[in-house]
């Protein structure tokens, strides 16, 4: 039996639009991305997004076993989204559940349009998203980190995939849904896009929205993706600057 059952708060948002965690409706939580923190993986990224802590890593292109799963004309992109048992209030049983199987598919499809898979026929590219600490929005944070890890692995891509959520609390649309809003809010929309091409690659929603609210929410999410996109590019830049500095340092020694 679980001892960590949470109770719903009295209200999720103030009359003046202050959300339960103190944010304004269009305010995101702090996001920090670090590139290349794993040694073995071909590419990796670590993201802190609100209370989320997520590792993403990429292996490939590499041989695919069993061979009959390989495709003659392109690389097979595979993705595993996984929550650690200690990433949630009540311990999560290890291993895939229905939710994580769906999210693995959704994240894979969000990333796929960004990649030139036809350059590596017969191979696989494996993306692993490991949620160490969850705090609402793991799928968008995971997608964001995974795209950076793909770039870090040097996989040829059209551009980075950036993602964010928008929710509804009563009549208010709120950007970057927080933990309580995720639990007791009225709607939740996740979106990812190739910002450079204005292409949406992931769109999921539950709860209820009027068609008008829906269109508005999509707009808000797209704007936020542009900010996330900047953070992604900056994180990649920082890693390369660090490498350059190290090489320069070595040379100068």
């Amino acid at each position, binding site marked *: 039996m*679980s001892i960590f059952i949470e109770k719903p708060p009295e209200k999720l948002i103030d009359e003046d639009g202050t959300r339960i965690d103190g944010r304004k409706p269009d305010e995101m939580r702090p996001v920090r991305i670090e590139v290349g923190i794993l040694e073995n993986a071909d590419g990796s990224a670590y993201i802190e997004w609100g209370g989320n802590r997520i590792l993403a890593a990429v292996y490939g292109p590499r041989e695919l076993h069993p061979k009959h799963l390989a495709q003659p004309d392109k690389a097979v992109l595979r993705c595993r989204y996984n929550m650690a048992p200690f990433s949630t209030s009540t311990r999560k049983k290890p291993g895939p559940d229905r939710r994580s199987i769906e999210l693995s598919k959704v994240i894979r499809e969000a990333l796929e349009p960004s990649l030139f898979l036809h350059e590596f026929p017969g191979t696989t590219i494996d993306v692993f998203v490991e949620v160490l600490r969850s705090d609402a929005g793991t799928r968008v944070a995971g997608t964001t980190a995974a795209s950076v890890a793909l770039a870090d692995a040097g996989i040829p891509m059209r551009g980075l995939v950036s993602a964010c959520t928008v929710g509804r609390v009563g009549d208010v649309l709120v950007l970057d849904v927080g933990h309580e809003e995720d639990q007791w809010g009225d709607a939740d929309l996740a979106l990812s896009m190739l910002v450079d091409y204005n292409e949406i690659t992931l769109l999921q929603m539950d709860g*209820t929205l009027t068609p008008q609210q829906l269109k508005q929410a*999509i707009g808000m999410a797209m704007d936020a993706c542009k900010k996330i996109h900047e953070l992604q590019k900056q994180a990649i830049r920082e890693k390369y600057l660090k490498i350059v500095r190290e090489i320069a340092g070595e040379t100068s020694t």
Partner: protein
Amino acid sequence: MRPAHRRVISLLKKEYIKTIIKEDKIREDGRHPLDYRKIEIKARGGFTKGEGEAWVRLGRTQVLAGVKIDVGDPYPDSPDTGVLITHEEPLPLASPTFEPGPPDENAIELARVVDRGIRSAEAVDLKQLVIPHPTDPGRNKVYLIFLDIHILDHDGNLQDASALAGIAALMTTVIPEVKMTEDGKLEANLEKLKPLPTKAIPVSVTIAKIGDTLIVDPNLTEEEVADSRITITVDDHNRVCAIQMLGGSFTPAELELAIDIATVKSRELIEKVKAAVKEAEANA
């Protein structure tokens, strides 16, 4: 001998489909981009032992939904709420590409999107599905509603067929009255049946993008040719209650259009569901 687990559409056919849609706004089976195939919904047909059921034909696609009722414990974090569990089973007889075994990612996604539509719309009034203990609410039981959707024949757009079958089955479900005694024993009156309480009719509209054209209700060939797909669930209160993109990408303008299409087409589907429910009730 034909190869196993493979469906090959010739490149020529693919090009043809794309071309006529682009140039003539006409589909390989003669439909307009925004036309559904013929829809037949047969609720309470006696094909199952479910407390509710519906057989849906969407063109050549066939699905069968059955609802079974049981009684059990509520989830610890929602003690005042009945439990709804949705499963989708792609029977291996429905397609040469389906294999026996537990549901794969496609089947799980299908079930979860149907489930999200029903749940978001609060189609089933789960609050009314508590079986109270006479004195101790901590010992309350709840109804468990199992919605199982079986795919019998797969010719594309399983999502919309499943959503139709699911809601039609739930709306024609009857549940036995169950009471709890002081010492926690359950007494079910299998003679005294009441309709499962429902509050909304969510239906899903799946839209595929082929080239620049959006089409509804893609058949299997169109699904394989499509650049991307999206399922938008709308209920009879005109609320969008679930969305799922299925691969590829959309521009913001295409998305806006898809939302508009879904709100319009959903009305047709909701009418079909209402008619099927009415017919089933008339026969009862």
